[in-house]
């Protein structure tokens, strides 16, 4: 576990996430969103979880970011409407971050260093998905189909 790599990836990811949540221009925010997911995927690779890291890259950078860019282009009429600043929102967000940090720091036994592990192959995850988790997998497939049909129905032009 490389400390320098951890620090670099953490700064990279958090800066990109902050840019995605705060930038005024939607296109720049969407780009920072994709960059934040590159950082998250490298966290997953650093933790030895290649399968979910690759799934994150394929699904988020390959599909979700492109979908968001398409939506931005489809809904491009209102730009630059800036109205005030919501101070109560930032107070609530800071309070929630404080509560999270407090509970993390208060927990015992978190100061453990990563033990040495054997590499986890995709074959093992696939076997778990096909045996222990086969019913959840089927349900997720059904959910994806329903979401696909639902999205199509929602954006279909109404016939008059």
């Amino acid at each position, binding site marked *: *576990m*490389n400390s320098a790599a*951890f620090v670099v990836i953490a700064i990279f*990811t*958090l800066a990109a*996430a*902050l840019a*995605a*949540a*705060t930038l005024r221009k*939607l296109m720049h*925010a*969407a780009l920072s*969103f994709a960059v*934040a997911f590159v950082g*998250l995927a490298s*966290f*997953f690779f650093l*933790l030895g*979880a290649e*399968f*979910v890291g690759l799934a*994150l890259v394929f*699904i*988020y950078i390959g599909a*979700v970011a492109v*979908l*968001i860019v398409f*939506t931005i282009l489809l*809904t491009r009429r*209102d730009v630059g409407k800036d109205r005030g600043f919501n101070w109560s929102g930032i107070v*609530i*967000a*800071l309070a*929630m*971050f404080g509560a*999270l940090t407090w509970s*993390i*720091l208060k927990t015992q036994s*978190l*100061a*453990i*260093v*990563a*033990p040495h*592990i*054997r590499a*986890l192959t995709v074959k093992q*995850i696939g076997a*778990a*998905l096909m045996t*222990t988790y086969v019913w959840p997998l089927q349900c*997720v497939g059904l*959910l994806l189909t329903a*979401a696909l049909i*639902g*999205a*199509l129905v*929602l*954006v279909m032009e109404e016939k008059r």
Partner: protein
Amino acid sequence: MITLGDYLIVSGILFAIGFAGVMLRRNLIIILMSLELMLNAANLSLVAFSRFRVSPAGLPNYNAQVFVFFIITVAAAEVAVGLAILVALFRARQTTDVKDISELKF
């Protein structure tokens, strides 16, 4: 050395950034992106837990990684439906600003 607590702190900061985005921004697309950031902060802590809890055979606990896989799938479905609703809303109202969509507000 990097401990489990460091990963959890990074995950907490990421979650707080996403939460602040949901609370502060008025654009629906930005709100959806911030929601995704919050979901993936949870994913990061799950993967960290899986790495730091090792089974007797010397493997990481990959049940957490299967769980992350399911979360990613459900989040992708959520994004597809959310963006479809957004496009339908824009067709009907010509806006993506939450302040202009407040009919249900009491």
